[in-house]
């Protein structure tokens, strides 16, 4: 909890209060809470008015002895967004929970609010040529050394003192190791030697070189930023169902005998999802913070695993296409993705995404919701499983499918019903026959 809004004061300035009396009601992001007094005395001053949203730890009043001098209270830093308007006390089915807000609890929960100390301008690293040369010869990183020269310049004696402090002369390095380290940007002092008596050998340097941080490729950076955004903004929850694919497997085999363009399991799943999305439009939506959208077209993205990273080509209007059309298009798109021939509008504009790891022998998994969607379906492997079928044990082809949904606009029941619709369409594929 980072902030709360004052709803109303139950005591006025000048009232006598006892420890434990409810002083005011506040609204947090979860519920309306009552705030009890920590002390007995008189409510001397009220500093926060109903409707004000303030950060945790902000002083909102004083309880004490009449006539006591009250300290100055610094104003809270300006809120980053407009404070939520105080809600009318809502009719409650039962008494609201009492917030036994201990001071310590608040302090632990809330981030520090006082102004950050002025950050010293980052030191501009300077080093004399002689000192730099020495550091280079010793194959160490001079930026780790504190400088004693003018403007904190690192000079020769600083390097020498640093080497001595680090016991550099006791470090044994093979000539080959030193040469390789010098050519890269390895600091010998970072290495642990695995040679005889702890000698640093070439292999140690090569290992350090391989472990050096390397920059993310542009593709990976994009993926990473999307994942971070999703993790940061979308509160997700998971629902899993088991789907009996036995009938569908048989149908698929039969259909594929008569076709050159083979239909995959994923094509069936995609069509099943398209039906379900029509039935549960909110799952085809997206939450944008305070607002949300329901998208009118059903464009389903198929996650494709490529060496350089994930790509998600999109089947547009999946609900309006036949299974055959979906099958043909999806295999074309995946081919294009693999050959890096996807056009921009072929991987933009998904309203829902399916990630299928069935070919990788996984039981189930959680997919991350793309930032501008409401849900994503993760499909595991179909495997022969012993289940109860018609009251008797049988071996059926079972797959686990898991839906991750944005809890801001999709509630548990909706997700469950959506999944059940998908399950139903897959377990009874007569629509495809």
């Amino acid at each position, binding site marked *: 909890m980072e902030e709360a809004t004052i709803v109303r004061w139950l005591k006025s300035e000048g009232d006598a209060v006892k420890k434990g009396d409810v002083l005011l009601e506040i609204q947090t992001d979860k519920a309306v809470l009552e705030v009890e007094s920590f002390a007995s005395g008189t409510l001397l001053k009220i500093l926060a008015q109903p409707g004000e949203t303030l950060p945790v730890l902000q002083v909102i009043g004083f309880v004490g002895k009449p006539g006591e001098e009250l300290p100055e209270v610094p104003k809270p830093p300006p809120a980053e967004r407009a404070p939520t308007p105080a809600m009318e006390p809502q009719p409650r089915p039962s008494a609201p929970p009492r917030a036994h807000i201990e001071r310590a609890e608040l302090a632990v929960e809330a981030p520090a609010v006082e102004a950050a100390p002025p950050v010293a301008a980052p030191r501009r690293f300077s080093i004399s*040529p002689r000192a730099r040369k020495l550091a280079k010869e010793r194959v160490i990183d001079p930026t780790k050394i504190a400088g004693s020269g003018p403007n904190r310049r690192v000079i020769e004696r600083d390097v020498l003192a640093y080497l001595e402090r680090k016991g550099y002369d006791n470090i044994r390095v093979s000539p080959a190791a030193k040469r390789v380290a010098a050519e890269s940007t390895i600091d010998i002092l970072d290495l642990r030697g695995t040679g005889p008596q702890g000698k640093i050998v070439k292999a140690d340097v090569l290992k350090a070189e391989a472990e050096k941080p390397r920059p993310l490729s542009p593709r990976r950076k994009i993926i990473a930023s999307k994942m971070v955004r999703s993790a940061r903004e979308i509160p997700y929850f998971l629902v899993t169902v088991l789907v009996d694919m036995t009938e569908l497997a048989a149908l698929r085999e039969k259909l594929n005998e008569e076709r050159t363009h083979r239909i995959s399991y994923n094509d069936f799943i995609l069509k099943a999802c398209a039906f379900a999305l029509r039935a549960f439009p909110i799952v085809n939506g997206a939450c944008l913070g305070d607002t949300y959208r329901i998208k009118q077209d059903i464009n389903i993205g198929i996650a494709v695993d490529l060496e350089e990273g994930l790509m998600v080509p999109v089947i547009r209007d999946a609900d309006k296409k036949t299974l055959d059309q979906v099958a043909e298009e999806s295999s074309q798109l995946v081919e294009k993705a693999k050959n890096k021939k996807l056009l921009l509008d072929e991987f933009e504009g998904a309203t829902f995404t399916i990630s299928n790891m069935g070919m990788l022998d996984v039981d189930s998994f959680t997919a991350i919701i793309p930032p501008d969607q409401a849900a994503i379906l993760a499909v595991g492997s179909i495997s022969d499983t012993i289940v109860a079928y018609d009251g008797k044990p049988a071996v059926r082809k079972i797959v686990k499918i898991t839906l991750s949904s944005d809890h801001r606009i999709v509630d548990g029941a909706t997700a469950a019903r959506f999944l059940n619709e998908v399950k139903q369409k897959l377990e009874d594929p007569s629509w495809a026959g």
Partner: protein
Amino acid sequence: MGEKFYWEAIRDALREEMIRDPNVFLMGEDIAIYGGAYGATRGLYEEFGEERVRDTAISEAAIAGAATGAAMLGMRPVAEIMYADFLTLAMDQLVNTAAKNRYMFGGRTKVPMVLRTEGGAGRGIAAQHSQSTEAWFNHVPGLYLVMPARPYDAKGLLKTCIRDDNPILFIEHKMLYKTKGEVPDEEYLIPLGLADVKRAGKDVTIFAYSKMVLESLTAADRLAEEGIDAEVIDLRSIKPLDVDTMVRSVRKTGKVICVSEGCKTNGVASELVSVIQEHAFDYLDAPVRRVCAADVPIPMSPALEAVTVPSAGDIVQAAKELLA
């Protein structure tokens, strides 16, 4: 080996070269009968006569011009300009004729002359008689520049200069004439372009020439008392400059002071700093310091004169700041 005065060492060099080579002759103001303003030609008129030791008119242009002409015709003149301050009057002959003729005549002539002069402060004889003007001549291609600090260096270098086929400016120091030092009896020569490590050290390098070498050595003694081991290098030859010795020293100590009695701006010390950072940048642990005369005319008042030009105290101060 014996102890000689600086002026004696110079006089002996001249004498020996005049004996050795009949083309060597001397000319200048008051060098013959008077024996030289500072005694550097004492006794030579009596020994060699008025043809070879010639008193001239008070005309620096004539002195320099006549020497240039004589040199081009096969003689080896050693001409004297009484005060380095007066070189300005000889400038055109020196800079535009003596320095350039060998080149402009396509090598079909040469100008084997030595122009002796003396400069420097310390006698309280004011702005027009106390300057160190060597920086002006270091800038002239075709002229060479030698400035000895000790009797030993003066003799060996002067002989080399007289035997050299180029026009060389040999600048002595008025306060050094009466200093004494060991000089071998047997003949010796000191080559041009060879500096001399007057005091080996490891903490800081001091490059100096002429009288500033003595100030630097005094400074080094004082620094030693405070645990600072200074290396003092007498450049001796300003052009050609001994860059190898300079680099070797910078490599050893990493900290450098360049001392010159000339004014700071565009002085010889500035050239030394440039050379050092070009050839020995990676060995530097701190910026190179210059210790030079203030950019003012040399005062007549002895008290002011003393603080205008560098002294041992200034060099000590610079060294301590470098090593702080």
